């Protein structure tokens, strides 16, 4: 029997490379993803100017309380039960997620990442910005209204 397994058909958010981490090749991602990120930025009052990331200057981000997470080896899978989407996150993305969860700002996360993965600070910053933009556009994190 090919029985239906009741439930929504869960889907990757924006393809299997949805949240390939901050050290993935620059510019990766679909047009749709960029449009979503730009829209998210517009709603958040960011510049949105054709980039796929957000500025992390001092901003802190709070993971959504809805999101379930499961570490697997050095990587991570996030499940948003409300949206019915899941996300595979690679090692560096997993590191950023952990830093954000601990209350680090994006800027702090970039500093930590540049040391941990031995990349220059500007590159780490750009990658963190892009990754945070993707998390935000997927509704996995929210910008904290005030620094704490």
């Amino acid at each position, binding site marked *: 029997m*090919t*029985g*239906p*397994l*009741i439930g929504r058909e*869960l889907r990757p958010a924006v393809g299997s490379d949805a949240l390939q981490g901050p050290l993935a090749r620059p510019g990766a991602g679909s047009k749709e993803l960029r449009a979503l990120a730009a829209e998210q930025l517009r709603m958040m009052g960011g510049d949105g100017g054709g980039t796929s990331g957000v500025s992390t200057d001092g901003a802190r981000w709070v993971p959504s309380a809805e999101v379930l997470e499961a570490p697997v080896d050095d990587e991570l*899978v996030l499940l948003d*039960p409300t949206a019915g989407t899941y996300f595979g996150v690679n090692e560096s993305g997993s590191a950023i997620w952990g830093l954000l969860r601990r209350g680090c700002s994006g800027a702090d996360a970039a500093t930590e990442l540049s040391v941990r993965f031995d990349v220059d600070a500007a590159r780490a910053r750009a990658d963190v910005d892009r990754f945070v933009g993707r998390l935000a556009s997927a509704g996995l994190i929210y910008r904290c209204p005030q620094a704490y």
Partner: protein
Amino acid sequence: MPARRYNLHGVSVQVECDGGVLRESVEGLLRAFANAALSGNGDSRTWMVFARSVADAGELPRARSAAAGLAFEQPRVGLDGSSWGYAVWRDRGRTIIEVSDRGLVVVEPERGCAEVWAVAPERWGAEEREGLVFLLASEVLRASGLYPLHAAAVERDGRAVLILGSSGAGKSTSLLSLMRAGWRCLSDDHPLICDTADGPRVLPWPARIELTAETARLFGGLGDMRARRGERKLWLYPEECEAGVASAAAAPALLLFPKVVDWPVSSVEAVSSRFALEELLRLGMVVVDRKVAAHQFSLLARLARGAACVRVFFGSDVKRLPALVDGLLHTAAA
């Protein structure tokens, strides 16, 4: 209405059916659990299940209250190309599944009660009827801590191999190939995953093994294969194969993700636990109740972490699969 009692790994289910065709579907799906001793990994409650037929959709009861909230809608039901859609509602602790104008499922975990209504089921195919009963059964099992997974599974020496994939990925072919080598059947299509003190375990849910005529010819000697009216596949019961059926929980040792390719020789590649978990989510994760979903997600993550995970590209030498699996298990153990 005479009731029939089943024991699904410790979950006691008493079923009353008001019609012959629904009773046939229930017995087809749950036959392995009839008269089973009451012990196992489920949460030991007793469920009352009612299966009813109505003549048309207007006779379906109004199950939802004004407080009901839509959990999600699915444009079609099943993986068999059928065109049913369904909507899942949460309503004061109940799960209500409205299946187009074909049927209704209501599951009330707190009362240990579940009901299914089917609209003129005598006009449906046998697989469609079983599909509706499966909706109810899987929801009852999930509420009891037993999670169906869309996979084939076999057991030997207490270790399980899971073959995961959508329809057409080669699950039943793999299952038969391994059973020919002495592995026992856990399930052709939907083994159960449960949580134990020793980690995730795979439990048997043996129903029919369904095969294409081509697969049946490839293996040959399968005895008295049957076909259901109007359906393309042939089937047999797993106990009719020499290796038979596993009767106890098995520790998951190997997760295989098959893909049929037009190559003379099969090949394998290791995949990450993350890949495995993403596939497990696609094939078995269900989000209706958040607490239940959180437990299932955690369980599937531990399943992916604890077993060797391999993608298999099936060539035309599928009968060599048992040797390939032995090699993979040996490597994983080393």
